[in-house]
């Protein structure tokens, strides 16, 4: 389970982790032994907690269906008082944000940066939240910038500079979401008496992508070492109060090994039976 790998990162941030499903204690016990899961898996066989949270999926799974009682899959992140600080739900059940993506959005830094590029005006480290991903997973591509002293890149706004922007090449196996930028700072350039939004110092741009469904990956998964390559271009313009560089573009690429979907079930004796809760 991908969550197990992220347990340490969550602990470092002082967060507990638990995962709840409508499975019986027996199923969860067998599953956690088979998958070496050490964090609490919670059993909600009558979907009481799922109902209390208001996320029971009865639209797709009416009473009598094998999956009746399942929630819309998603994640709540709370503070120590139980107040929701962030939440992650996807529109279709096969899509889910990985825990590693959640950590990347929370500011976590990977142990081994995937790729580092130096330009005259900034250093860029690019990595993906997951070192491998399965169909349906939503992962985060991360761009960590470190601007050289005095340099700033332009955020989009009503000005003539080329704004920082990541353009990913569209492809059938990936849904590209909107890039998420940090807050830009107003920068006043006295000689022109202009104030423009800029990024300075260290900042992070994140770009979520969702892998297509397992069916779409069937062909790719038959090849040895299946992997997905996501390519794109970073557009930007960087200036300081002394010098302004020409608009520029930097080609970028992420390669993410694709994992097969896990189809292994629990032993038959403890499996869910249709129409039985």
């Amino acid at each position, binding site marked *: 389970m991908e969550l197990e790998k992220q347990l340490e990162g969550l*602990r470092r941030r002082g967060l507990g982790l638990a995962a709840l499903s409508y499975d019986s204690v027996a*199923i969860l016990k067998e599953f956690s032994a088979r998958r070496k899961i050490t964090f*609490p*898996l919670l059993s909600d066989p009558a979907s009481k907690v799922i109902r209390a949270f208001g996320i029971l999926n009865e639209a797709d799974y009416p009473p009598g269906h094998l999956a009746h009682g399942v929630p819309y899959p998603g994640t*709540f992140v709370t503070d120590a008082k139980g107040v929701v600080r962030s939440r992650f739900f996807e529109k279709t059940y096969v899509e889910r944000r990985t825990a590693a993506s959640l950590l990347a959005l929370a500011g976590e830094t990977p142990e081994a940066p995937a790729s580092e590029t130096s330009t005259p005006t900034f250093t860029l480290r690019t990595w993906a939240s997951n070192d491998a991903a399965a169909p349906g997973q939503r992962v985060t591509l991360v761009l960590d910038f470190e601007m050289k002293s005095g340099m700033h890149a332009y955020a989009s706004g009503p000005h003539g500079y080329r704004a920082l922007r990541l353009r990913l090449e569209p492809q059938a196996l990936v849904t590209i979401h909107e890039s998420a930028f940090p807050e830009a700072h107003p920068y006043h350039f006295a000689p022109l008496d202009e104030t423009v939004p800029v990024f300075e110092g260290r900042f992070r741009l994140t770009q979520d992508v969702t892998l297509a469904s397992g069916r779409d990956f069937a062909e790719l998964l038959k090849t040895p070492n299946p992997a997905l390559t996501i390519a794109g271009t970073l557009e930007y313009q960087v200036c300081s109060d002394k010098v302004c560089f020409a608009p520029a573009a930097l080609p970028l690429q992420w390669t993410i090994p694709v994992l097969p979907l896990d189809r292994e079930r629990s032993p038959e004796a403890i499996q*869910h039976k249709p129409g039985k809760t």
Partner: protein
Amino acid sequence: MVLPILATLALAVMQPVPAASPQPLDPATLGPAVGQTIPAFEAQDQEGRRRDFASLEGPNGLVLVFFRSADW
């Protein structure tokens, strides 16, 4: 039994069209929103122990994942 009738009427008013194919719900709008407190809950973990929020959270809070099933 006035209340059930009223409730039925209210439903009839709220749903004037018998939806043949209901709009898919957007799960992003379901459940506690950011800033709201999650409901109190209790459930058994894989070892059969009773767990609640207090026994699961870390010093800064809890990541609570709802997943479909460990079985299928």
